[in-house]
């Protein structure tokens, strides 16, 4: 039972993370190749989401299964929202890197 609830918590967190990205960088803009956006802002949006995920990992001591679930749920939520595959792959990969290794130290 405990396992069930904590899995649900991972799912809910992944959804809220994806929704937060979508609020700031909606699929309609992300999927439009003609629409330029500030790369600095886009990096900031993703980095903030990844940092939140890394904190969630630390607070909840996720094992390999729940880390994988977090990445997978995040990916599926982005897909449901209609993002292009390319963006989904970049965002999901970044999330997994942050959750497994933590943020890259700034030089």
């Amino acid at each position, binding site marked *: 039972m405990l396992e069930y609830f904590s899995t649900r918590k991972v799912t809910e967190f992944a959804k809220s993370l994806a929704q937060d990205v979508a*609020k*700031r*960088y*909606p699929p309609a*803009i992300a999927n439009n190749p003609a*629409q*330029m*956006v*500030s*790369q*600095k*802002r*886009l990096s*900031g949006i993703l980095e903030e989401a990844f940092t939140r995920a890394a904190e969630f990992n630390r607070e909840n001591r996720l094992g390999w299964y729940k880390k994988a679930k977090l990445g997978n749920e995040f990916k599926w939520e982005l897909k449901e929202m209609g993002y292009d595959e390319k963006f989904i792959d970049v965002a999901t990969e970044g999330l997994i890197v942050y959750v497994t290794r933590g943020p890259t130290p700034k030089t």
Partner: protein
Amino acid sequence: MIYYSQIVAPYLRHLDRLDGPGSNDAIPAVRAASALLLAGEPQRAAEVLAGLPADGANDANLSGALGFIAYLRRQGTQAVQLLERAVELDPSNANNLALLAVSYLGVERHAQALDAFRSALRVDPALHVAQTLAWSAIAGSGRLDGALRALKAALLDDPQCASAPAASKMPIEDTTLCIVDCQNYALAERALRLCMAGCVFDQVKWLTDRPFDVPGVQTVVIPPVRSAADYSQFIIKDLLPHIDTEYALVAQWDGYVVNPQAWSPEFLLFDYIGARWGRRESSATDRHTVGNGGFSLRSRALLQALQDPAIQPSHPEDAAICRIYRDYLEDRHGIVFAPGDVADRFSFEHIEQATLPFGFHGVTNLARFAAAPRIRTLDFLFDGPEPRAGTG
């Protein structure tokens, strides 16, 4: 006849709303004829209209619609006659009143135009075309300077919008609200208060030439900015050191937040957003339509890029940034300007929007957002100051 195209879109929307169950059967024909006239097919439009009663047959909607046809045909006198009849039959139709006003304006009957605009605004104070073109009637009657003084005085008497509870205010992340104003002190303070009434900013700064004590506002004393050219120079080259956040929301005494709920974090994806201008194809740079600087969001990255010595300040500063140097800023500095549809949700100036954007700019839009009805209907131009509550 002087033709004001601004009335066309709102009146077409009015015709579309009339074209439903229970409406006059002739309205669809008038609607079709309007489209043909606008497409440059007057002959076909005449054929469509051939069977209709030319005098409007004592029907307010049909008289108004035929007045619109006359207006599109630049037949000013006939438009006035039909619309006067429409208004006589139904004095509560704001669209016919506004079209009558525009028709008077077209034949340079400015006083009657202003009266008709005021009547339209009494029915619908949010009628953008009436709010804006009323100022053409004011200018045409030679009263612009006096009217502007009266508007400023009336706004200072206008009850301030009550501040929303802190928890329900819209958070505007990583943004400094700023106004640079060394002339319209009281109105600049009013604009800051109105922005802060519904939004929370990281910082609020009033850059001016003397210290003021306004709660929640950091006044920063700067050398006097006395002219529009000084303002442009300051905004382009001198604003950067005053902004510690990633974005600056630049407001003015006549440009501020009017719909906090329309804020979107999406706006922060761009380095510059301001109300869209009309498209002008007269030169290569004029193809850019975003946008007005009087109420605009600018990134720190843009303010830094503007320090490039190749960028020479010129007036007006928004045209310098968004037209003269836009291509350079994009190519050399990677600056991204918002597209028109995003700008339309952010702010408006001359171009009417279907839904109320986050903010606005422009003297001609100010009355619309006043709290006092006598300001919204421009009655303040014709009567004395309203007695203040509690002063006896």
